[in-house]
């Protein structure tokens, strides 16, 4: 194609002919409705950053690519939109791996763009070259290496489609720098030829739906076991309708927290390793367990051979590969959780089941979640108070460890997309950037990161990102001077031989102030209410360093390999 022809074509502003790859990248992101990118620059993405110079898309410079990836994740979880992250080749790309794997395990929609060395240098161990598609393939739903600028538009369109449809997940697009400066000679083919990709959204098989409802109606001890899939499908309202119509006791996984309002009397709160005893007993005694968008994770089932032994199992899931993966299912229903729940509603009968509800109430009275507000500040009471003071309405992020479990147990979840937590991969360091990402998606909401001293230390540098972009995110560090969760295992299963878990902490308030955030440290119960109050009502980012009881343990606990109702209860429950 001659220069003249190209010039003539590019006058058409909607077309791509004559546009550089960088320009097409930019056009496509606008087309996909992207309004924010989290990332970090470098040599191989210079042409893309040059295009971003006058863009209406907000670019957020983080302090580490992992932070950018978790921010995009927090943004996606809290808004339901697809998170976007951009990094350079080599080390920029490898720094994304933890963030991608975190999003992959929890089915979070994300598109990651990485720069790559020039096409003709690929495979030569060029400067800052890494086999990015090779490295990230197992931690992405799909990935692409773009080798021709004429394919870039289509690839970006496909990437967003794949990331956000079906069972969502991260998709990575690797773009060699020469592709970003090359000019397109063809209009992109947007027909998206993906002959192998047919996500199973939508309604379920009508016959199966009726079969499932019949089983539920006939059950004496039904339980709804609700997971992240309900949140991903925006199905909370449909779930509430079914649970209330059928008077069905409902428990959620860690990732399903908020999909069902915990103040509803039907709520059993979280089940699993650190779930409530009443949820775990209910599941074990159930004669009909209905899993909705949950994947029978080992933290939930305990010993598989002893899991829900009396129950007929119904499984609603969008991913056929989730069904009968670990637990064999009696009535599978493949499709979107919200659609299927709506389909089921008319068939669900209202039944009182007084015996079953009586039994559950008894368990609730006998085994409430509890802590003793004596001596040092208890981590549980900080979360409990925060929940009450924020009307159980804040967006909460967490790190990974004991504090994460206490947050799950004590905050009091009322709304979907309220919790930002790494469940599947269990990524320490997720909390700080995820909270900030969620704040970008919800600038007017209160966003609080409930973090552990260990997890916080891994990514606290991103506080300066919150400061710089005026994000009023709050961070509570529950400092026990330990890698507490690991310490708890060593206490319980390794005769208290504490090995590699003492974790002396710096003066977090000084660090926070150094970053430009407000901060306070509290060590005594008498300071707690005021401390939380001041934090909640502060204008900007705020770090509240709370020194808590060092050797507090999380109960109930189902030890690894034990049946779900074989729990260590602690002294108080």
């Amino acid at each position, binding site marked *: 194609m001659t220069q003249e022809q190209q010039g003539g074509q590019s006058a058409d502003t909607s077309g791509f002919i004559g546009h550089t790859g960088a320009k097409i990248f930019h056009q496509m992101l606008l087309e996909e409705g992207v309004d924010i990118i989290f990332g970090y620059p470098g040599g191989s993405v210079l042409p893309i950053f040059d295009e971003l110079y006058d863009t209406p898309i907000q670019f957020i410079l983080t302090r580490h690519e992992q932070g950018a990836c978790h921010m995009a994740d927090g943004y996606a979880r809290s808004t339901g939109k697809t998170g976007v992250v951009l990094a350079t080749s080599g080390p920029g790309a490898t720094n994304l791996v933890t963030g991608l794997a975190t999003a992959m395990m929890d089915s979070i929609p994300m598109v990651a763009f990485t720069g790559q060395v020039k096409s003709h240098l690929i495979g030569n161990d060029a400067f800052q070259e890494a086999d990015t598609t090779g490295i990230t*393939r*197992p931690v992405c*739903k799909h990935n692409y290496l773009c080798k021709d600028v004429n394919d870039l538009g289509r690839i970006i369109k496909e990437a967003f489609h*794949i990331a956000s449809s079906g069972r969502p997940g991260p998709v990575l697009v690797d773009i060699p720098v020469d592709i970003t400066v090359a000019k397109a000679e063809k209009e992109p083919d947007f027909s998206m030829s*993906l002959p*192998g*990709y047919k996500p*199973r959204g939508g309604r379920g098989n009508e016959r199966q739906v009726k079969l499932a409802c019949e089983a539920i109606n006939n059950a004496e001890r039904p339980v709804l076991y609700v997971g992240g899939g309900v949140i991903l499908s925006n199905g909370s309202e449909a779930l509430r309708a079914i649970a209330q119509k059928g008077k069905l006791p409902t428990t959620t996984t860690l990732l399903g927290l908020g999909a069902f309002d915990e103040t509803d009397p039907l709520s059993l709160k979280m089940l699993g390793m650190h779930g409530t005893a009443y949820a775990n007993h209910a599941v074990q005694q159930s004669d009909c367990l209905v899993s909705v968008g949950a994947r029978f994770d080992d933290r939930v089932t305990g010993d598989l051979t002893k899991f829900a032994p009396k129950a007929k199992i119904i499984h609603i899931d969008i991913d*056929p*590969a989730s069904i009968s993966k670990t637990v064999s299912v009696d009535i599978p229903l493949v499709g979107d959780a919200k659609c299927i729940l709506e389909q089921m509603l008319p068939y669900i009968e209202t039944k009182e089941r007084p015996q079953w509800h009586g039994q559950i109430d008894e368990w609730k009275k006998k085994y409430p979640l509890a802590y003793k507000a004596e001596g040092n500040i208890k981590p549980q009471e900080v979360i409990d108070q925060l929940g009450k003071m924020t009307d159980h309405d804040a967006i909460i992020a967490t790190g990974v460890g004991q504090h994460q479990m206490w947050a799950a147990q004590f905050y009091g979840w009322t709304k979907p997309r309220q919790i930002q937590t790494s469940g599947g991969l269990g990524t320490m360091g997720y909390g700080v950037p995820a909270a900030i990402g969620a704040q970008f998606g919800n600038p007017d909401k209160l966003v609080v990161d409930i973090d552990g001293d260990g997890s916080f230390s891994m990514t606290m540098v991103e506080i300066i990102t919150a400061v710089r972009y005026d994000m009023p995110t709050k961070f509570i560090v529950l400092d026990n001077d330990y890698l507490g969760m690991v310490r708890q295992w060593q206490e319980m299963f390794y005769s208290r031989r504490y090995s590699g878990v003492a974790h002396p902490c710096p003066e977090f308030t000084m660090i926070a102030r150094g970053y430009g955030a407000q901060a306070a440290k509290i060590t005594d119960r008498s300071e707690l209410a005021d401390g939380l109050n001041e934090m909640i009502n502060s204008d900007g980012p705020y770090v509240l360093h709370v020194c808590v009881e060092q050797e507090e343990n999380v109960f109930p606990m189902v030890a690894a390999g034990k049946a779900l109702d074989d729990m260590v209860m602690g002294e108080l429950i």
Partner: protein
Amino acid sequence: MKHVISAIVENQPGVLAHVAGMFAARGYNIDSLVVGRTEDPALSRMTIVVIGDEQVLEQVRKQLEKVINVVRVRDFMDADYIQRDMMLIRVHVTPEKRPEVLALVEMFRAKAVDICRNSMMVEIAGPEDKIEAFIDLVRPYGIHELARTGIIAMQRGKSKTGSETQNGKA
């Protein structure tokens, strides 16, 4: 137990790595994996022999279907199908033993494709057990070298890859 699975995949770079990587990551045991063209230049066929029980097979099938570039998957569990493996084998054969080995070649409807002073290369195709039987019979002479393609398979009485079951994926 061995199962034969056939996957129609998009003919694109990276697909083999994706499928092989998925098998490795999930700890599935592959006995053989063959990739080749189909009647449609945009598609290739992978024929994979996996070892495992029925539950493993079911997961393998579902996980394969999840790979974006995999278009269709079928397992030949209950189907009536033809499977073929092909082998080139160089056997130690002294001139005195030649007639003996050639008789075997004849009996197996194999072909002697190269004969040197002390060895003979044989080409043989067929179901796996026929090939195994041939190997057993020539082993006493001494095997210099052996190469097998791995199994390819196709269902009887079907005309096109397109008529196979479509899969869902999420």
